[in-house]
């Protein structure tokens, strides 16, 4: 092996290592899968967790990878929720998977149209524009009560079986397995995308927009792309909620949902895709636990948690997982007969 081909191999290895699944990731998904059999009584709440996880994952795509702060992500969630609800209610598209894709499409279309409004501007203008758009959508849904059911919510949704085979049941078995499958597929896609040249360029734009443009990276099209994708994900999350609960209301468009989504993501940390997933588990179980203690004032504890998380420092909270991740990297990088070189081969000539 010549030194230049060794160098080439080391470069390729750096890229592929980044894309390789670590042991911890595999374990994570195995645990998720095992809950199908191990926690059959919890499927209702687990389905909810999965939907929160998907919503937070969608936020992570824009916040963690493109640096866009949004206070109105619920707009896309709600649009997806109502799309799925209306399709089912009026029996336009009975099959849930297809309807879910359309819910995602609706989110994507609206995301694409509004992405032009968040391209430029400071954090503050983006924050207000996203907030304003979400309020606008909610107001619209409220006004068009004949279509959306207004404040009463969209009732009388009758769900068809998934793929024509699996009926939604009272215990949430179908709901959970269906939601988990959707989350897994979308997670795979997101993982692939953030590891691609497109994802790397997004990180560059977020990290240093001046330099990104100085090496020829045009920011606009990429931001539009990721914003649209995130909106599609949020739409699918909303659609899932409607399909698994056979109901949707203005709550799906509310400011609280946007804020809670942010919270879920922040709990698990931004910019590593698993943040929203871990956050959703913590969030939903905390909600459950607090609800049994003080049923009415859940909001107070969320608020307190947000305040504390900022005062303590988000990096430190995210830091809880760092030792774990490092361990996972070490375990994941080790393979029999092929240890990863610490010093580059060929650096000092022949070994």
């Amino acid at each position, binding site marked *: 092996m010549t030194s230049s081909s060794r160098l080439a191999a080391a470069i390729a290895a750096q890229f592929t290592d980044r894309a390789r699944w670590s042991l911890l990731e595999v374990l994570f998904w195995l645990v998720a899968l095992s809950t199908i059999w191990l926690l059959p009584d919890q499927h209702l709440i687990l389905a909810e967790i999965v939907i929160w996880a998907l919503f937070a994952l969608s936020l992570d795509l824009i916040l963690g990878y493109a640096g866009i702060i949004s206070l109105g992500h619920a707009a896309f969630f709600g649009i997806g929720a109502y799309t799925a609800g209306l399709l089912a209610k009026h029996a336009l598209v009975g099959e849930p998977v297809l309807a879910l894709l359309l819910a995602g499409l609706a989110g994507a279309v609206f995301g694409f149209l509004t992405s032009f*409004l968040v391209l430029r501007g*400071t954090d503050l203008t983006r924050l207000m524009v996203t907030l304003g758009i979400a309020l*606008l959508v909610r107001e619209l849904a409220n006004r068009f009560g004949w279509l959306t059911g207004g404040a009463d919510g969209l009732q009388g949704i009758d769900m068809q079986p998934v793929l024509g085979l699996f009926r939604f049941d009272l215990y949430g078995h179908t709901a959970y397995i269906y939601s988990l499958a959707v989350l897994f597929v979308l997670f795979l896609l997101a993982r692939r995308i953030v590891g691609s040249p497109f994802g790397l360029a997004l990180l560059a734009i977020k990290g240093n927009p001046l330099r990104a443009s100085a090496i020829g990276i045009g920011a606009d099209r990429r931001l539009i792309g990721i914003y649209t994708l995130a909106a599609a994900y949020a739409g699918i999350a909303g659609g899932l909620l409607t399909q698994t609960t056979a109901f949707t209301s203005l709550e799906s468009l509310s400011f609280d949902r946007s804020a809670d989504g942010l919270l879920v993501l922040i709990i698990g940390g931004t910019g590593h895709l698993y943040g929203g997933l871990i956050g959703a588990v913590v969030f939903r179980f905390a909600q459950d636990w607090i609800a049994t203690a003080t049923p009415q004032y859940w909001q107070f504890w969320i608020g307190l*948690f947000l305040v504390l998380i*900022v005062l303590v420092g988000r990096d430190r909270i995210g830091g809880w997982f760092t030792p774990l991740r490092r361990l996972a990297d070490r375990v994941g990088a080790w393979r029999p007969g092929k240890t990863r070189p610490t010093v580059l081969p060929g650096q000092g000539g022949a070994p």
Partner: protein
Amino acid sequence: MITILFDGIAYGMLLFVLAAGLSVTLGLMNFVNLAHGAFAMAGGYAALVLVNRLGVPFGLGLVCAFLFSAALGALLERTLYVHVYAKSHLDQVLFTIGLVFMSVAVVDYTMGSSQQFILIPPALQGQVTVLGLDMSKYRLMIIVICGLLTLLLQLGLTRTRFGSRLRAAVDDQRVARGLGINVGAVFAMTFALGSGLAGLGGALGAEILGLDPIFPLKYMIYFLIVVTVGGTSSITGPFLASLLLGIGDVAGKYYVPRLGAFVIYTIMIVVLIWRPQGLFVRRGAR
């Protein structure tokens, strides 16, 4: 027509008093304080308790509302906000949303979730005829009080020592410190003053805006609109923006009730995209 204009002006001036503090913290100190409305709500409920339950005269209740919110603002600024000034906008957003949620829950717990009104003395109820126009006494009072406050604020910011210190402090903290200005104290004072004004506005506006635990969330967007549309180069901008918003909102609800708040949100988004520095900023005055 005249009545709508009159109501709109009263509403707008009220919004200005409510949002004036935010235009300083957000506009000048570059701190995203989404919890500003919580201080307004605190003042509103303080006045409500004093006037309705303890029988304190209405005027004194207003003063107490100001003092209560100002004290609360000063306390929170010194203990909590001061740690968040230097953090990212995302942190500021999360932190202040957290405060909003807490305030909503606390008020819900202590005061109940239904909308409440402050008892207004009979002298302020009903109509009065000025220059042949029938006007609501209460709204007239709002215009007078808020007008006076606006003048005071303008004079205070431009003519007093405190005003010049504040402008120096937000302009360049290091230079201000070098000049011997206690930047922390100036910020705390400003924050307290802004919170106090919000509290006063909350008490005054309880009659018009209503008072319930979700007040901070309901009006958050209105305060933000005042600041972003008005810009931050002077208090005239937010003042004009408030009037415009007040008149626009009242007129919108009267003439096109079906559209509701739709018009306002749309205008805000358009302004943000079209002139991110605000509508009333002189061009090139950066």
